[in-house]
C-alpha cells in the first residue's frame, strides 16, 4: 500500500538519504483551531497500521480557548512510534511541527538537541511574534543553530494548492494547512497517505468539497517533501517484530473505561446506569457512554456530583450495574454519599480520573495525589477497594475487574485513573468478547430465611435484593445497624461487630486479586515499586538501567486496597525500595504504615508524567 504514493512521486530532486531509527517522538503544536489533535491522530494511526508500536499524549489548552497565537492557546499532540515496545509517549521529542511562533517558543525547551523543526514561516510576522512574546524573530539569528530547521510557508503553499477552487474563502483554505503539514511529515517518515485519504472520505462523506480540499493539500504536502530541496533525509522506523497477531485499535484510558463499563454490564447481564456531572478530565466517559444507548446504557447528567453519586446508589439499589466518574473537587463532593454506599453495601464503580490538585488545581494536568483521599477521605471507618490501572489499555480490563469485585463483594469500588492515562492512547489488541468471563450477578429472590445483612460465608457479601422482588421488602440506610438483620442499632457490640465485619470483608478481597508480580531479581538491593499511570516511565527506566547492568527489580501495584497478599513478603526481600509517584509520597506513606519498611521516595508534582530519564537517574543515584 505504501507504494501507491511513493511510486507516483516524481524524482525531481536528488534522492534523499534514508535513515533508520528505532523510535521517534514528534510533537505537533499549533492553535487549538489548527486541527493538531486530528493531525496527530492520523499520523499515529498510519504508523500503527504499518506495525509500529505507538503511544500518544495530547496537550490540550487549559480550560478556555485562549486568544489565537498565544501560548495558552496552544494545542499539542505528542506521538511516540517505534519498532519496539513502547511504555510512554516519550521523554522529549526529536521532531517539532510548529504551526506558529508560540508553538515554537513553548516546545523548543523540550526538543532534543539536534532535533528537527518544521515551522510555518507565514505566521512569523510581527503580530504572530508579539502574541508569542518574542522580541525578535527566532528564525533569524543564531537561536536555532543547534537544530535542523525547515522553514515552510505552510499557509501560502496550502492556499496555492487550493487556488483554483471557487467559492472557497482564504479562511476556509487555511483550515486545511494541517493537512499540508501532515503530508510533509508522512513523506519525511516514509509513510503512505492512503489511510488518511480514506479517513477524509469517511469523515466528510457528506461534504465532498472538504474531502477534495483536504486530500489535495495532503498530497501537496507530501509532494513538497519529495520536491523541496530543504529535506535531505527520510527517516524510517521499521515495523515491530513478533507482535501478537490480531486486530488492533488505539484506545485512550477514558475510551477503555467506556468499553469496560459496557462490557461489564453485558457480562453481568444488567443495564448500565451511569450518573455523572461533567468535569475535566472525566467528562469524556459520560460523553462516550451517552452515545451507546443501544446497549441499554442509561446516562444521567446530574445537577452536581452529589446528585450523580446519589443516583448511582439508587440505581445500584434497584439492580443496575451503576457507575460514576469524576475528578478532584468532584470526588471530594461525593465523599459523603460514597459513605452511604459503603454502609448500604451496594455494588458500584466510582472512577477518579485524577488531575492536579489541591482545589480546582490544574484541571487538564495529571497527578497521583488522591490516593490517600480515596482510601481515607470519609468519616468513620469506611473501607473501599481501590484499583489503579497502569496504562490506558489496562483501563479496559481493570474496569471489568473492578465491577466484578463490586458485585461479588457488594461494595463500592474506586478505580483510580489519572489525566495521563485518561488521554494517552496506545494500541489495544481487540479481544473476542465471547472469551471474557461472565460476571456472576444474581439477585436473591428467595424470601425464605432472608435477612438484609445476612452474609455469604466466603465473601461476607450480603445478598443483592432489588425492589420489585415479592416478599423481600426491606429498608436500609446510613444509620448504625445490626449485622444480619440490618435493623438500626445503637448497641455498642452491634456497632463494633459490623464495623469489623465490613473491614474484614474488604480485606478478604486480597484472596481474590492476583499477587504482586516482580520483574527482575527475586531479591537483592533495590525494588522499584510504582502504581497507576507511572508504569510506562518506570518500566522503561528500569529496563534502561538493567541494560546498563544494574541489578534492579520492578513491580507495579494495581491493587491499592486491599494490597496483594504477598506484598509484605516482596518488600522484605530487597534492601531498598524506591517508590516513584506523582505526589509528595502517598504510596510510600501507605507502605510504611502497613509494613515494617522504610522506602526511598521519588516525587514529582508538576502536572506532568515522569520522564524515563528522571526515574533512571534516581535509580542510578540510589545504587551508586
Amino acid at each position, binding site marked *: 500500500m505504501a507504494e501507491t504514493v511513493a511510486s507516483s512521486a516524481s524524482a525531481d530532486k536528488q534522492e534523499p538519504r534514508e535513515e533508520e531509527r528505532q523510535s521517534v517522538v514528534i510533537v505537533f503544536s499549533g492553535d487549538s483551531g489548527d486541527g493538531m489533535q486530528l493531525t496527530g491522530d492520523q499520523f499515529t494511526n498510519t504508523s500503527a497500521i504499518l506495525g509500529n508500536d505507538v503511544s500518544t499524549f495530547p496537550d490540550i489548552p487549559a480550560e478556555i480557548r485562549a486568544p489565537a497565537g498565544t501560548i495558552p492557546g496552544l494545542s499539542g499532540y505528542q506521538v511516540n512510534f517505534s519498532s519496539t515496545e513502547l511504555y510512554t509517549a516519550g521523554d522529549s521529542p526529536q521532531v517539532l511541527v510548529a504551526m506558529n511562533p508560540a508553538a515554537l517558543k513553548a516546545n523548543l525547551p523540550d526538543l532534543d538537541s539536534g532535533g528537527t523543526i518544521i515551522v510555518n514561516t507565514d505566521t512569523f510576522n510581527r503580530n504572530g511574534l508579539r502574541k508569542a512574546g518574542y522580541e525578535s524573530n527566532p528564525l533569524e539569528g543564531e537561536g536555532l543553530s543547534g537544530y535542523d530547521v525547515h522553514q515552510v510557508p505552510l499557509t501560502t503553499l496550502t492556499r496555492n494548492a487550493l487556488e483554483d477552487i471557487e467559492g472557497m474563502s482564504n479562511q476556509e483554505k487555511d483550515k486545511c494547512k494541517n493537512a499540508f503539514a501532515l503530508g510533509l511529515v508522512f513523506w519525511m517518515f516514509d509513510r503512505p497517505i492512503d489511510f488518511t485519504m480514506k479517513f477524509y472520505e469517511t469523515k466528510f462523506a457528506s461534504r465532498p468539497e472538504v474531502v477534495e480540499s483536504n486530500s489535495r493539500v495532503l498530497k501537496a504536502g507530501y509532494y513538497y517533501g519529495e520536491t523541496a530541496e530543504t529535506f535531505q533525509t527520510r527517516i524510517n522506523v521499521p515495523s515491530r517484530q513478533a507482535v501478537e497477531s490480531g486486530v488492533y485499535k488505539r484506545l485512550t484510558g477514558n475510551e477503555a473505561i467506556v*468499553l469496560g463499563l459496557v462490557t461489564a454490564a453485558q457480562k453481568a447481564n444488567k443495564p448500565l446506569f451511569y450518573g455523572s456531572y461533567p468535569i475535566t478530565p472525566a467528562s469524556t466517559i459520560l460523553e462516550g457512554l451517552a452515545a*451507546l444507548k443501544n446497549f441499554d446504557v442509561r446516562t444521567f447528567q446530574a445537577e452536581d456530583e452529589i446528585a450523580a453519586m446519589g*443516583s448511582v446508589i*439508587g440505581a445500584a439499589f434497584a439492580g443496575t450495574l451503576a457507575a460514576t466518574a469524576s475528578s478532584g473537587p468532584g470526588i471530594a463532593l461525593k465523599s459523603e454519599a460514597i459513605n452511604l454506599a459503603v454502609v448500604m453495601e451496594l455494588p458500584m464503580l466510582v472512577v477518579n480520573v485524577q488531575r492536579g490538585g489541591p482545589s480546582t488545581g490544574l484541571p487538564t494536568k495529571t497527578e497521583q495525589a488522591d490516593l490517600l483521599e480515596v482510601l481515607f477521605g470519609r468519616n468513620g471507618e469506611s473501607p473501599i477497594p481501590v484499583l489503579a490501572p497502569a496504562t490506558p489499555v489496562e483501563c479496559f480490563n481493570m474496569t471489568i475487574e473492578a465491577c466484578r469485585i463490586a458485585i461479588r463483594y457488594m461494595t463500592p469500588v474506586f478505580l483510580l485513573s489519572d489525566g495521563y492515562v485518561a488521554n494517552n492512547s496506545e494500541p489495544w489488541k481487540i479481544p473476542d468478547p465471547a472469551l471474557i468471563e461472565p460476571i456472576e450477578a444474581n439477585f436473591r429472590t428467595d424470601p425464605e430465611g432472608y435477612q438484609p445483612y445476612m452474609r455469604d460465608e466466603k465473601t461476607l457479601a450480603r445478598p443483592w435484593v432489588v425492589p420489585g422482588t415479592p416478599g423481600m421488602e426491606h429498608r436500609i*440506610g446510613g444509620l448504625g445497624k445490626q449485622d444480619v438483620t440490618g435493623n438500626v442499632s445503637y448497641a455498642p457490640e452491634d456497632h463494633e461487630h459490623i464495623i469489623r465485619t465490613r473491614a474484614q470483608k474488604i480485606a478478604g478481597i486480597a484472596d481474590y486479586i492476583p499477587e504482586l508480580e516482580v520483574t527482575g531479581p527475586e531479591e537483592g538491593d533495590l525494588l522499584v515499586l510504582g502504581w497507576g499511570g507511572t508504569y510506562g516511565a518506570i518500566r522503561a527506566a528500569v529496563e534502561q538501567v538493567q541494560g546498563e547492568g544494574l541489578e534492579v527489580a520492578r513491580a507495579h501495584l494495581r491493587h491499592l486496597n486491599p494490597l496483594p497478599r504477598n506484598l509484605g513478603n516482596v518488600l522484605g526481600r530487597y534492601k531498598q525500595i524506591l517508590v516513584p509517584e506523582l505526589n509528595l509520597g502517598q504510596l510510600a506513606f501507605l507502605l510504611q504504615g502497613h509494613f515494617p519498611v522504610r522506602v526511598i521516595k521519588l516525587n514529582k508534582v508538576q502536572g506532568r508524567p515522569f520522564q524515563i530519564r528522571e526515574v533512571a537517574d534516581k535509580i542510578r543515584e540510589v545504587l551508586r
Partner: protein
Amino acid sequence: MSEAVAESKLTRKDFVSDQEVRWCPGCGDYAILAQMQKVLPELGIPRENIVFVSGIGCSSRFPYYMNTYGVHSIHGRAPTIATGIKSANPDLSVWVITGDGDGLSIGGNHLLHSLRRNVDLKILLFNNRIYGLTKGQYSPTSLQGHRTKSTPMGSIDYPLNPISVALSAEATFVARTQDTNTKHLSMVLQRAAEHKGAAFVEIYQNCVVLNPTAWDHTTKADVRDDNIVFLEEGKPLIFGKNLDKGIRMNGTEPEIVSLDGDITEDELVVHQEGRENASYAYMLSRMEYPSMPLPFGVLRSVDKPSYTDMMFDQVEAAVEAKGAGDLNSLFNAGDTWVVD
C-alpha cells in the same frame, strides 16, 4: 400473577413494618403515616413495587415504618437516589419523604432538579417549620422573627414558600394538604400517586414538641375556615365558615370579596389545575396567611412526558436505529488494523 394476588389481598396492615414507631407522642408524622398506609392498598400497586426514599430528619424515618422497599438515605439527597431507582426500574412507584430542612435547606437543589426533569417521583415535604431531629433550630420555612435555639433574637431570614419553589422548578403536579385533615390528606396522596411525572405535595405537619403552634391558624376550629380555601377543579374559589367569601381577580392580583349578594360566584376565580401557564398556580401560592386564605388541594396538575419515559424512549430509539448493542462490533468500530 403475584400482582393479582397481591392486589386483591392488601390491606392497611400489610404496609405496617415490624419496626417500633419512634416519633414523639402526638407528632403529626403519625397521622401522615396512617393515611399513607390506608391509601396504598387502594392503589392496586403490588407492595414489592413500592419504594420509599427519605433523607434525614424526624420525617425521614418514615420508610422504616412502611413494609415496602425503602432507603433512609442522607440529608437532602433523597430525590437523587430516587431518580437512580426510577431510572433502574421505571415500573416502581417511588415516594420521596422529606422535611422542610431536608428538602428545602440542604436538599433544595435536588428538589428543584428532580421536579424540573419531571422524574416520576411522589415527593412529600413534611413542613413543620423547624428542624425536628436536631432539636429545634429554625428552618427555611420558619417565619421571620422566630426564636429558636439558633436564633435566640429571632430569625432574620425571609422564609421560602415551598409551593412557589416547586412551581418555579416547572413541577407538573403541586399540592398542599395537612396532617390532621385526614380526608383531604388521603385524597391528595391518591391524586399524587395517580399523576404520571413528578408530584410535589407540601404537608403541613405539626411538631408538637418544638414548634407546636406553627399551624394553629389552619387547625383551630374557630379560625381555620377563614384561613384555608379548598381548591376544587372547575369550582370558584370560595371559603369561610359560611362559604361567604370568595377570591376575585383585581388586575393581575387576587382579592377577597364577600359573597353578600352584590358579588356573585361568576366573578370569582374558577380553579383550573391543568393550566399550561404556571402563573395562575403561582398566584395562588402567593396567597398567604394572614392576608389571604391558604390554598389547599391540587394547585397544578399538567401532563408532560416523564424523565424516565423519555430516557427509555431514547434507549429504544437507539436500539431501533443501531440495533441492540453488540460488543464485537463496538470493539471493532473505528480505525483498526491487523497484525498477522
